[in-house]
């Protein structure tokens, strides 16, 4: 395990990515102490005399937003929301998708057909509409948003995992397992799930960026995270009409989302290689 971690750190890109993720996590956890201002504080001098947001300066390192709030503080507090959404909501989506896809792919027949037709139905249903309906029915809160996103995002995972499981289940080593007398739990747990790990990792890391943005969309429509609570997504959405006059309001949160998502992808890649025995002894 330690050796594996060392092997990962030996790649400069992975080491850098891990550093970025660690920084973001620390920022999120320590936001109340790190932030120079309260995130929803609207100081009197937060706007220019004619009411425009302030560009970055010594007092507001990243400038202020349209209501005069300190952008850096909002980004630090927003990290809490966005990480939670990105990891929990996306993780839940991958987990649901894996469970449905594996079950449908391995058992096939009536169970598989029913599960997959339901997945198709969900896929055909406009995700945003579903999210809005769910969020409107349930009282909006951070956890509800996470739940809604998970319920919308699992379908693609289920589709892909289903196809892969179908392929795996037909392979001879699964037949060999059955001929040895292995039960379903053993076959699925020890011989199918490990092969789905790369897919899970790719989706788990790629999904973080899209999930953060989906949260922003929901927030923008008023069914997501409720203002004044900041999230990276809603910071962008609140400010995008000021893109020309105050570009830092979009660039800064955008860069943070990009960097975080990229770091998760790089770590995911490294993790996938590390867990793949086929990489061993190559060449």
């Amino acid at each position, binding site marked *: 395990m330690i050796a594996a971690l060392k092997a990962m750190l030996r790649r400069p890109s992975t080491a850098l990515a891990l550093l970025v993720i660690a920084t973001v996590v620390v920022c999120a956890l320590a936001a109340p102490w790190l932030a120079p201002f309260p995130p929803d504080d609207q100081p009197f001098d937060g706007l220019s005399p004619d009411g425009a947001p302030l560009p970055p300066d010594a007092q507001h390192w990243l400038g202020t937003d349209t209501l005069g709030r300190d952008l850096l503080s909002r980004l630090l507090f927003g990290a809490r929301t966005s990480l939670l959404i990105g990891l929990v909501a996306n993780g839940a989506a991958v987990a649901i998708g894996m469970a449905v896809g594996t079950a449908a792919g391995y058992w096939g027949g009536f169970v598989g*057909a029913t599960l997959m037709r339901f997945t198709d139905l969900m896929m055909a249903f406009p995700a945003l509409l579903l999210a809005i309906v769910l969020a409107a029915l349930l009282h909006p809160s951070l956890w509800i948003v996470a739940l809604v996103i998970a319920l919308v995002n699992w379908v693609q995972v289920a589709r892909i995992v289903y196809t892969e499981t179908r392929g795996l289940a037909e392979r001879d080593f699964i037949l*060999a397992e059955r*001929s040895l007398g292995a039960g379903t739990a053993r076959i699925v747990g020890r011989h199918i799930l490990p092969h789905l790990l790369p897919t899970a990792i790719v989706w788990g890391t790629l999904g973080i960026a899209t999930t953060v943005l989906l949260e922003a969309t929901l927030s923008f429509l008023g069914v997501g995270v409720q203002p004044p609570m900041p999230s990276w997504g809603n910071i962008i959405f609140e400010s995008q009409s000021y893109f020309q006059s105050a570009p830092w309001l979009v660039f800064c949160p955008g860069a943070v989302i990009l960097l975080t998502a990229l770091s998760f992808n790089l770590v995911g890649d490294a993790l996938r290689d590390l867990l793949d025995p*086929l990489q061993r*002894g190559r*060449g």
Partner: protein
Amino acid sequence: MTGATPPLLAVQGLTIDARTPAGLKRVLDGIDFTLGREETLCLAGESGSGKSLTALALMRLLPAASLRVAGGSIRLDGCELAGLSERAFRPLRGRDIAMVFQEPMTSLNPVMTVGAQLMESIRAYGRESGDARGRARDALDAVQISDPARRLGQYPHELSGGMRQRVMIAMALARRPKVLIADEPTTALDVTVQAEILRLMRDLRRDFATSILLITHDMGVVAEMADRVAVMRAGRIVEQGPVLDVFERPREATTRELLAAVPRLGALRGTDGPPRLGPATAKPSAPAAEPVPALVVHDLSVTYGAGGWFRRGALAPAVAGVCFDLAPGQTLGLVGESGSGKSTTGKAVLGLVPFTGHVAVDGTAIAGLSARDMKPVRRRAQMIFQDPYASLDPRMTAGDAIAEPLAIHGIGCRAERRDRVAELLRRVHLPPEHASRFPHEFSGGQRQRLCIARALALEPTLIVADESVSALDATVRARVLDLLLELQEELGLAFLFISHDMAVVERMSHRVAVMRSGRIVESGSRREVFETPRDPYTRALLDAVPQRLSPTCTRSTGNTTPFTIT
């Protein structure tokens, strides 16, 4: 060859390096050969010897990311190809030099009709696209496909393996190349189909005046096809010469091994069982009491694809009314072509596919048993599959794979299992320290040994071997067969040995059953079936085995007396 004219294709000092993390590694080292006009040269050797690499290098289809041509000269019709740019080389492909691959299933585009693919190869590079359809039909005609006009509109999956390989050959020959490279063109085909394709290639060489570079590991194919043969080993040509010289006076050990590995049909004429390897043991050959048969099969039928809500209805049965039994310590060879239902039969007797009828393993009827009741039966009956790589979980070490059956059946503690794995590895002649390696770090033959070790772990009485040596090279195959015979002798295993290869079945079996279209058309002792076959289908299978090196009328080498390998 009439030595006066220069050779059509001359390869000199062809050298290829592979890029590995540890630096460049030489995989092809100074290959020299020539190919005359209308000549057939066979490149023979085990897999990994560099035959296919040579062919890919000639076609310039090497994956540039991992392989690099380090040197050498390739002259086609006096024109040097080695220095040409990709752009200058591309027009030569198909026009001057064309290739047929091993797998006709995967080498055709499944979503394009045969006609569209043929016309594409004719039209490539613009010339004379006028009557492409007519030329495509002519091309199919030339490869002796039935009803060529209709085939043009069909998709690859509608054709049999043999027909697909004919289409591949038609595509390769569509623009009348000077050189046709065929990389194991019949390895994936049934034996009767193989004989047809080889005959076709001989005809085409004559009709199209094409030179053929044929790559194969099967010296039987070499004997059928070649004028000259070059034997490769570890990236070098170790021996090269006219086929009769090489066959009669092989100089190199590699050549002798390849020749010895050709399963010789009729080698066991007049005997009842497989050859004994060790000294005859004191085991009584005919026990007094009638023993419980290792396997009894009565009226076995299997139908795939029973309908469902979202699927179409039932299809024709894959196996219909099959009966046989198998005595302990004996081998029943089940032969037939692909699609004859022999593999399905093998799976059914282990309860891996739903079936109707009576199957009893070691006296226990398995029809309708629940997974739990089936588990003890699984300890007594095991399976070895065709493709050893596919039947091992690539994410599991060899040791874990072999210990898997012990873990499933809860036998022994961790340390005991480890000892048992070491013992099993030794039993199949692999070093016990290889237990920590992953399947991809083994060779094909070694992987099949792993599968055998896994099958032995539970000390079964019956092993179903489904085409277990078909994916292996001839020399490796011979060694694995020896291992199976040795294990049978020592452990008293009963084998249900499924194969399309008559010679292999002859070597292994006490009794033989011939399957066709889901039914057994002939069965009896090995001696009866092989020496006095009654069914015409059995005779056709026996006739199709390439075994004679004889100057047939189509061959250009004029000398020689009839000569057989046997």
